């Protein structure tokens, strides 16, 4: 199947060459990296492999660093605690409140660490590909959050109570159905959709930009002197994009868990 992929790539290149430009702009196809199995609907992609590696890596490192957790932390435990406290105190406790937050810390911390490392895969050799640039992964994560916040809301208030609590008190009777409609759309459509698309879109676009600058710089090097000179600012721009992406990738992981925590907090809230 690698052969087929290569063949497909060659075909594309050939087609582009025949187009006359010589430079092939990156297309969404750069995210399509089937590695095992067929290259069809059930292909195992490179992102899945790296995603699996990230889970193993995170599990091993985090278990090792927290195994001998003591009152006086070792250096490793200290680092682990700093990372853990960011999700625990900075997100879960601040958003959900000291009363209920501890129950949701494992989920939010898992989400944060998983998204963060997979986002940073986008700029880390040898991966150089953000896992979340494939929409399937953000959808999976959002599905978990979606089920969790609806589940705890319904468990707490009952199905009717859950829907009733979406509409704030003290509204005139005639406006309540409209608000209810809007809130239902928010709760069941807008929130999961934006949560998944925000993460996906940022990773997708960021990776496209980096590939564009790097491939353009590399292409310029193959051309005559003027273009070779032009490759310098292009590579500088690529480097800037790397730093910028590192920030965006962190921020997206943070925003994802922050919003997840806020949805959970909203479902748990006693009043609006």
């Amino acid at each position, binding site marked *: 199947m690698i052969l087929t992929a290569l063949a497909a790539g060659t075909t594309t290149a050939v087609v582009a060459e025949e187009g*006359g430009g010589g430079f092939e702009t990156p297309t969404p196809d750069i995210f399509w990296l089937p590695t095992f199995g067929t290259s069809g609907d*059930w292909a195992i*992609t490179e992102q899945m492999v790296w995603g699996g590696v*990230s889970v193993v890596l995170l599990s091993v490192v985090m278990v090792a660093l*927290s195994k001998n*957790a003591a009152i006086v932390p070792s250096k490793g435990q200290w680092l682990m605690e700093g990372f853990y406290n960011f999700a625990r105190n900075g997100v879960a406790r601040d958003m959900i409140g000291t009363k209920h937050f501890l129950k949701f810390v494992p989920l939010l911390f898992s989400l944060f660490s998983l998204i963060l490392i997979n986002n940073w895969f986008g700029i880390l050799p040898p991966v150089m590909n953000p896992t979340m640039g494939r929409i399937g992964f953000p959808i999976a994560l959002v599905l978990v959050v979606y089920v969790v916040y609806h589940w705890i809301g319904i468990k707490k208030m009952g199905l009717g109570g859950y829907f009733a609590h979406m509409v704030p008190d003290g509204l005139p009777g005639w406006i309540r159905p409209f608000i209810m409609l809007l809130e239902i759309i928010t709760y069941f459509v807008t929130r999961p959709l934006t949560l998944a698309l925000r993460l996906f879109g940022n990773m997708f676009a960021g990776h496209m930009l980096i590939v564009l600058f790097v491939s353009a710089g590399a292409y310029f090097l193959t051309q005559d002197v003027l273009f070779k000179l032009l490759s310098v600012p292009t590579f500088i721009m690529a480097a800037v994009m790397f730093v910028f992406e590192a920030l965006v990738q962190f921020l997206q992981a943070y925003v994802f868990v922050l919003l997840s925590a806020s949805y959970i907090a909203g479902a748990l809230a006693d009043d609006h």
Partner: protein
Amino acid sequence: MQFTATASSVASLATAEGAKMPLIPHIPELIFGLVMIGVLYWVVSTKVVPNLEKAYEERRAAIEGGMEQAEEAQAQAQAAKQQYEAQLHEARTEANAIREEARAEGASIVTEMRDKATAEASRITESAKRQIEAERQQAVVSLRSEVGTLSTTLASRIVGESLEDEVRQKGMIDRFLAELESGAVRPEKVSASAPAAAPAGEQPAQGELDLGTDNPAGRDS
């Protein structure tokens, strides 16, 4: 360029086998995403979070224990301070009492000493007075006997006769002294009567001459 790029994208869309529109999820990835978060959640919730939370709990307990100890120490220090202050107050009161006592005692001592000194002084004065009186008496007595002797010698020289006779001598002297004391005999009288008596009697003149220094009559005799 723009056109060729689009053309190539379209071409690649058409040619890249299995590639879908970016927003269509690849089902194995979606399922594997669920597996990933599931596995990681299991590891985190059973192996990572409990350990860390346990350490946090122990740390909190240790800190609270430390706080309790510190509070206890502070309470002890407070108690010690109060005790110390009470003692200090007591000592100060005591010192005041002692000072008052000492002052009173001093005052009484001063009064006593003053009384004693006054008594001593009066005693000394008294004894000095007595001594002076005694000495005066003694002087009077000795003067009296000496004056007697002197005047006897003087008289015997003047009158040229021996007044050895004790009784006569004593009687004469006593009489003379008595006259002196009673004021019957005065020095002025003697001196005034001397020139008047001189021609009348020989004895006063001679006495005068004897006492004086530049009288030729006296020198003759």
